[in-house]
């Protein structure tokens, strides 16, 4: 299963562990952290931009700073490209194993066109069919409040794109800070593959000034790890059973998880 965390924020963290450290822990656990910095008419500030860039770099993902009207398309493309990149890495890794230190033959890019065409065809199948989980972490600090409707819209749009995939896709939604100081992030939507029946995605947003991005990332990481496929299959009986029979998923779980 491919796992991603997508952080949507508009500024700097100001409480707790550095978010870049949290992101690097997520990467160690086999997840990719992407970050979108969202602006309305102002700018995000030099410090904020640098932090966003660093979180993504440490999380093995990418970052972009966009206007809220471009949010939907940006997160859709980011998620999709990250799936391709993750599979790309695994394939490159495998090629290294198969072809060893053979000159020039260790990455997909270095393969001669005919072989490359064949490998990419298989990679496309994998991108389309592997199961995917994206945990969204939404900054709900006071300055984000007016942007939350576009964020919610973008999440629904992402779900729509993911639903078109042939593999199983699920998303979970968190916002931060949580309701009290012991709660860095609050779970809004549990792993779901359809949001159309949910009237609202983000609930009970408190008006608190802190932005504990780092602790919130760790909170999401814990959720993703705790809710592993093993526990998942216990909770939801027959649902994932189908998935385990799926050939591609079995292959991936060896390498990615």
């Amino acid at each position, binding site marked *: 299963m491919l796992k991603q965390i997508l952080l949507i924020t508009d500024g700097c963290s100001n409480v707790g562990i550095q978010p870049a450290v949290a992101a690097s822990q997520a990467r160690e656990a086999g997840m990719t952290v992407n970050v979108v910095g969202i602006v309305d008419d102002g700018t995000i500030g030099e410090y904020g931009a640098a932090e966003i860039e660093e979180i993504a770099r440490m999380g093995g993902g990418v970052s*972009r700073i966009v206007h809220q009207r471009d949010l939907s398309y940006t997160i859709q*493309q980011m998620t999709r*490209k990250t799936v391709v990149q993750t599979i*790309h890495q695994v394939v490159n890794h495998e090629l290294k194993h198969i072809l060893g230190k053979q000159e020039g033959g260790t990455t*997909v890019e270095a393969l001669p066109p005919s072989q490359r065409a064949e490998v990419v065809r298989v990679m496309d199948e994998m991108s389309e069919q592997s199961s995917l989980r994206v945990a969204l972490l939404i900054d709900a600090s006071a300055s984000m409040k007016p942007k939350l409707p576009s964020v919610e*819209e973008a999440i629904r749009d992402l779900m729509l794109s993911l639903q*078109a995939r042939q593999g199983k896709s699920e998303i979970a939604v968190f916002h931060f800070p949580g309701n009290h100081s012991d709660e860095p992030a609050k779970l809004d939507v549990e792993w779901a593959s359809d949001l159309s029946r949910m009237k609202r995605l983000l609930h009970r947003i408190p008006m608190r000034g802190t932005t504990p991005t780092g602790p919130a990332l760790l909170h999401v990481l814990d959720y993703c790890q705790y809710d592993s496929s093993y526990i998942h299959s216990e909770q939801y009986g027959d649902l994932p059973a189908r998935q385990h029979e799926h050939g591609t998923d079995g292959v991936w779980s060896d390498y990615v998880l």
Partner: protein
Amino acid sequence: MNMERTGYGVTTSYNRNDRSLQMNQLRNDKLRAGAVITGIWNKRSYRVERSLGQGSNGVVYLVAALAEDETVKTGSTRYALKLGADTIEFQSEINAIRALEQGLKQGLNRDRSNPQLPYFIEADDWEAGVGKRPFYVMRYVSGQSVQSFVSSRGSDWFGPLCGQVLERLATLHEQGFIFGDLKLEHIKVKPNGDVDLIDYGGLTQLGKSVKQFTEWYDRGFWNAGSRAADVGYDLFSFAVMTIHLCQDSAFKRVMKGSLPQTRQTEELLHIIDSNAVLIPYREWYYRALSGKFNDSRRAFQEWQRITRQVGRTIPRRAIPTPSWLKWSFGVSILLLLISIGYWAWHERWVQDLLMS
């Protein structure tokens, strides 16, 4: 965007920190005219003449094939060369185009001749100095945009041109692909009125998820269905795109005013009602926008039927009366009145009547 990259955005090693979407990078390094691109596998060279535009996965250039002695022979063919950055995405585009061509070629033997071929010439890599970049060469289609063709020659062309686009789409669909990212920039009208689709970067196998799309023309964006590749997806994009073509200002007004949650295709049908060119196609649009077509060949034939009807109907609109005619009519009435008065004055009985 992570810009900490070496080379031209080609990931050459297994390095987790070195990942990027590579979207902006493509735009930053355009080649100048005169640059020579040589393939490392097939050893053919091309000289860049000018940039044709930014495609979905790379930049497209107009190029001339170089002969062995590095010169451009007079009258040598011009090609369109697409230079990509992300090898994987690019290869996947090439794969789709080649699979499509394979299918079209096979169909050619049994079917009628297809003027679309050959589209794809070759694919290769270019050693760009700082890293390898993939490219492929395709047929160059010179022509006008639909907007300028229709606006300079009149809306009579709307039906026939759009019909040709539908025919091209139907041919793709029969090969098991959808065009995906349909937009006006991807359509060229040749001087003889033939229509060609260019930039097949959005080509998607039926049943797969649509990877690239233009928001305005996207079925998901209009809350009108999924983003899975089916025949209806292209027809939906076609419908919105052609409404936009016909009614640019009204379309933009709707786009500005609409909220994502309430965005509905009814708004598009309202635009149709206010446009004389679109009205004959209203029923067709209704079906395309609500996903009622599941065969694009039939959709094409239906469109053709309406277009023929439109062509054969002489509008009953009255020819406006020229102003000289109106004036002379007024003057003759005036003259008539004067002469009646004069005649009456001369008749004695009128005078008598007035006297008494």
